[in-house]
């Protein structure tokens, strides 16, 4: 009973953090960096697992071989974990080159929470793939949906941009100019990495 109450309390805390990243991202990230609630990473991992389950079922179908489904989930899970580790360490090392001050654990915590827009986009895309599968058409409904979907994608992209900026600003105490310089180094590396994963058929849209 105590365990379930604790779980519910932590879940509510997680939802408050999620709302905070939407409503007051700077204050929320600053609080995360200061209080370091690493237990909350459990819920981020849980959301990633839910996404992996839904997306694999959506792509392969409910009647697919369970062994094949499990293999797909594990492969995608390894790719996401590896991408997260590589991106965290890259940002940390490049940030340190530009005199960033901070520890890797704080950066990993903030970078993990910056996955919220990524997860939102991927989860909703999975749901729409099942409910309104592509391709889109030139009909009125097709155009309206396309406009709304693109707007949602852009909003998630901007949200991600804000959280990326705050990860560097608060996690490594860099100023805006140094964040720009770090990005000039990180983004080309990220593009090369994404290109390799795209060619390997692991990601079409990068899970970053």
């Amino acid at each position, binding site marked *: 009973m105590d365990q379930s109450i604790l779980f519910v309390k932590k879940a509510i805390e997680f939802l408050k953090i999620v709302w905070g990243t*939407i409503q007051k991202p700077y204050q929320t990230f600053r609080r995360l960096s*200061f209080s370091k609630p690493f237990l909350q990473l459990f819920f981020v991992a849980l959301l990633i697992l839910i996404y992996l389950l839904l997306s694999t079922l959506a792509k392969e179908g409910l009647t697919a071989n369970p062994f094949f489904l499990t293999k797909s989930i594990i492969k995608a899970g390894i790719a996401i974990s590896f991408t997260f580790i590589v991106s965290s360490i890259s940002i940390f090392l490049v940030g340190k080159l530009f005199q960033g001050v901070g520890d890797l654990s704080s950066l990993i915590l903030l970078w993990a929470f910056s996955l919220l827009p990524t997860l939102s986009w991927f989860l909703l895309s999975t749901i729409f793939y099942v409910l309104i*599968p592509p391709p889109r058409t*030139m009909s009125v409904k097709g*155009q309206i949906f396309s406009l709304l979907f*693109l*707007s949602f*994608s*852009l909003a998630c992209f901007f949200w991600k941009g804000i959280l990326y900026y705050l990860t560097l600003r608060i996690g490594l105490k860099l100023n805006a*100019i140094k964040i720009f310089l770090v990005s000039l180094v990180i983004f080309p590396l990220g593009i090369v990495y994404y290109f390799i994963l795209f060619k390997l058929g692991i990601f079409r849209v990068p899970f970053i």
Partner: protein
Amino acid sequence: MSNKSGDNFYNKLRQRQLELSSIPTQDLGVADPLYKAFSAHLKVAPWKLLIPLALIIGLTLAISNNHYLINLVTRLQEGF
């Protein structure tokens, strides 16, 4: 007589002050006023600015090149 509620309040206030001062201020020189004016809109409820901006960009693309919008969304939907 102990003043526990006062101590708790003081501790909370102190923690808050430490949290607020944990991020150093930045000075961007000439660009500072512009940066501060822009970032003020992104610190609280940035969605009020970003959602309309996303809609405007989407509408602009829809008006200028409908086919590209449809193709782009089809590819994005398949990209999850």
